[in-house]
């Protein structure tokens, strides 16, 4: 009985640890920062919290009508879009897609939001 | 309480069981394929558009959901109203209710424009919306009927069967009221905006559910090689006839009332006279095949299984026809924004909206039927749902011929 429990526990541990050694062959994403300067938050904070910052802001913008926040999605895209493709999507070398493809997290934003820059109608618009 | 305890047994997988399961499974796979096509390409590949926003999937899904609440009828009659002759059939009734609800709910959820957002649908509720209440009611239905089924099948919990049955009965009435109100609460469309739709759906649910239950019972009896006695059949066929008549009565009252309002003459003329497909489906599908024919078959003297089953199939066809007229017909008639004026626009104002269901959305709807069928077939094989014998002596020991 004890042997069975132990071997089952070891098997479970091996299975759970699979992501750790399975991902060793995949190259880390190439994060090219196109624009000089600083992001709205330090990289360690942004990396972990950008989804919460965006999620928090989107309700303020849409439901309360508060515009011009630093954490606006369009501001991120204008800054981070690849100079080559003009978009944050398109290949795994693009800013958003690179990391998201690596960690296999679906990007839902761009079902509706425009991933390409330079398509804003009015000059100096801050959505 | 009968002194003789009835033995329940799983059916054996003989004589076409696996063939039937494979056939239903194939339809299920086709439905799944249809869903993935719709989810990937968007609704552009379907026959639905901005004028007919709810199509074949909703017709089938709402039929299954309404039938699901009605399929519980046999169990409710046993537990709530104390008709002990139905007690041995109550577990099958409860399971069929859950299976039909699963099929209907699946089609409804999979047709959503953003079906990947089911967690949002389950966590963000606007309780003023009858749709939101329905999501809560439909999912709660599984829990309540599941508990009810468990109490029925677990001997130690048998004494709680009646309270569970009452709870399930009240829940299912609320659920069907909610489903009818989805249309009844819409003030915008002339074919809806009626308080009568909720009770109409309740009476129709009795008819559709009982019809599907009889069909399932006959199929189970054939698959399990357990011949069905006519004592229960006689009672159920009379009950079914009553429900069909009740439904027909409410439909007549609904249309008569609408005909009395001059402002509704347009939509009534459309449905009853010159609506093309809608009129055909109404008179031939809903009235002739769905109401008149079953009444004739069910009320003729004697208990003839093939007559009863034909009536049940006719009721199912009539039910789908009724949902088609309600859902598609209600959307086909244009909104009257400017009474007294004829309107024309690039957005199809003032025109009857045409609808041609595509293969992909019909397959999705049929997949719902397949889900229910597969669930029932597997349950019959692994659970002790049916009595070992379905003859008169077992089901109705006090039966006097």
């Amino acid at each position, binding site marked *: 009985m004890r042997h069975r429990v132990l071997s089952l526990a070891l098997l479970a541990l091996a299975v759970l640890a699979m992501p750790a050694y399975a991902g060793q062959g995949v190259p880390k994403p190439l994060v090219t920062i196109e624009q000089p300067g600083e992001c709205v*938050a330090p990289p360690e*904070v942004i990396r972990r919290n950008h989804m*919460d910052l965006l999620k928090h802001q*989107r309700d*303020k913008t*849409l439901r*309360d*009508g*508060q*515009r*011009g*926040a*630093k*954490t606006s999605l*369009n501001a991120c*895209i204008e800054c981070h879009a690849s100079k080559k493709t003009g978009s944050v999507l398109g290949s795994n070398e693009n800013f958003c897609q690179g990391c998201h493809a690596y960690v296999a997290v679906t990007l839902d934003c761009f*079902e*509706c*939001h*425009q991933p390409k820059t330079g*398509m804003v*109608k*009015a000059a100096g*618009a*801050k959505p | 309480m009968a002194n003789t305890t009835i033995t329940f047994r799983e059916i054996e997988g003989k004589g076409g069981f696996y063939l039937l399961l494979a056939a239903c499974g194939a339809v299920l796979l086709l439905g799944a394929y249809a869903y993935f096509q719709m989810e990937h390409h*968007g*609704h*552009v*590949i379907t026959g639905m*558009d*901005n*004028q007919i*926003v*709810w199509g074949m999937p909703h017709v089938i899904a709402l039929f299954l959901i309404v039938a699901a609440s009605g399929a519980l009828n046999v169990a409710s009659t046993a537990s709530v109203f104390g008709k002990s002759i139905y007690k041995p059939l109550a577990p099958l009734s409860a399971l069929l209710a859950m299976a039909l609800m699963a099929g209907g709910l699946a089609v409804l959820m999979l047709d*959503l*424009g953003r079906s990947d*957002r089911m967690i949002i*649908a389950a966590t*963000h*509720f*606007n309780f003023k*919306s*009858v*749709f939101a209440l329905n999501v809560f009611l439909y999912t709660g239905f599984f829990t309540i009927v599941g508990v009810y089924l468990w109490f029925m099948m677990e001997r130690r919990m048998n004494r709680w069967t009646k309270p569970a049955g009452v709870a399930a009965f009240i829940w299912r009435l609320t659920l069907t009221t909610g489903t009818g109100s989805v249309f009844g*609460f*819409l*003030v*915008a469309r002339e074919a809806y905006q009626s308080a009568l739709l909720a009770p109409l759906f309740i009476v129709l649910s009795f008819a559709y559910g009982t019809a599907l239950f009889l069909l399932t019972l006959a199929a189970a009896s054939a698959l399990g090689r357990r011949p069905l006695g006519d004592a229960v059949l006689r009672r159920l066929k009379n009950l079914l006839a009553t429900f069909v008549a009740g439904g027909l009565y409410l439909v007549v009252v609904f249309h008569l009332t609408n005909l009395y309002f001059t402002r509704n003459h347009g939509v009534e003329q459309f449905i009853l006279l010159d609506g093309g497909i809608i009129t055909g489906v109404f008179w031939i599908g809903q009235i002739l095949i769905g109401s008149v024919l079953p009444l004739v078959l069910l009320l003729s003297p004697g208990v003839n299984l093939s007559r009863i089953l034909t009536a049940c199939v006719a009721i199912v066809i009539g039910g789908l026809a009724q949902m088609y007229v309600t859902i598609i017909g209600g*959307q086909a008639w244009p*909104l009257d*924004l*400017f009474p*007294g*004026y004829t*309107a*024309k*626009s*690039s*957005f199809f*104002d003032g025109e009857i909206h045409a609808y041609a269901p595509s293969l992909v959305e019909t397959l999705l709807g049929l997949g719902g039927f397949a889900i229910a069928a597969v669930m029932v077939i597997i349950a019959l094989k692994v659970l002790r749902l049916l009595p070992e014998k379905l003859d008169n002596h077992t089901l109705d020991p006090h039966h006097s011929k």
Partner: protein
Amino acid sequence: MSESPKPEAGRRAFLGATAAATAAGLGFVALAPGVQLIRFAQAKAGMEGASSKVRWGMLIDTTRCATGCKECVAACATENAIEPSSGRPGQSSQWIRKIELKAEKTGHEISLPMMCQHCAEPPCVDVCPTGASFKRADGIVLVDRHTCIGCRYCMMACPYKARSFVHETLTEQNPEVPRGKGCVESCTLCVHRVDKGQQPACVEACNKSGHEAMLFGDLNDAAGAIAKRIATTPTSQVRADLRLDPGVRYQGI
């Protein structure tokens, strides 16, 4: 012997409380940079957001609306990057449309644009199961596409057939007007322009073309042009018997 549990319990409680406080403190510190930044951003931008003191509305003078003119429809399509569907014409989105009316008995003809009426009591908001269809404080009725599940119940409920459903993947959206497959949409009163102090695209186009049939403004501003016109000229709301109090009024019907 009976005394020993008490100090132990006290020590445990103290350690637990400290641990909890530390965790909360760390959590707050970790979140604080992001949270603080957002606060600064808002204070600097100075955008208050929508206020209920304002109620945006439109007045449409149908006597100035020309039969066959579709300037407002074209402007809306350009501004919001609305393209015809690759499927059937019935699957194309239309946020605004021109309706040509002819009185059945008298033959009198009217031409007018119809769009979301931005009701004060919107049925689309009532029926939305997730609350995605909502009314902003300043009266603009919008769809929150983050929460919309695409059930289309609001499309069934709208008495003006104002809503459209996006049937296919979109790629050329205006960054200021996010719209996508599977969500329902309707006229936003060009909320992205209104928030910048501009007029909706349709109103601007109608004025530019010289017809000047559409007037946009704050219905609550008694000194404003629209409120003054409504107070002095006969105007009506479409399907007024439904008592939804639309924010769009029509003159000449």
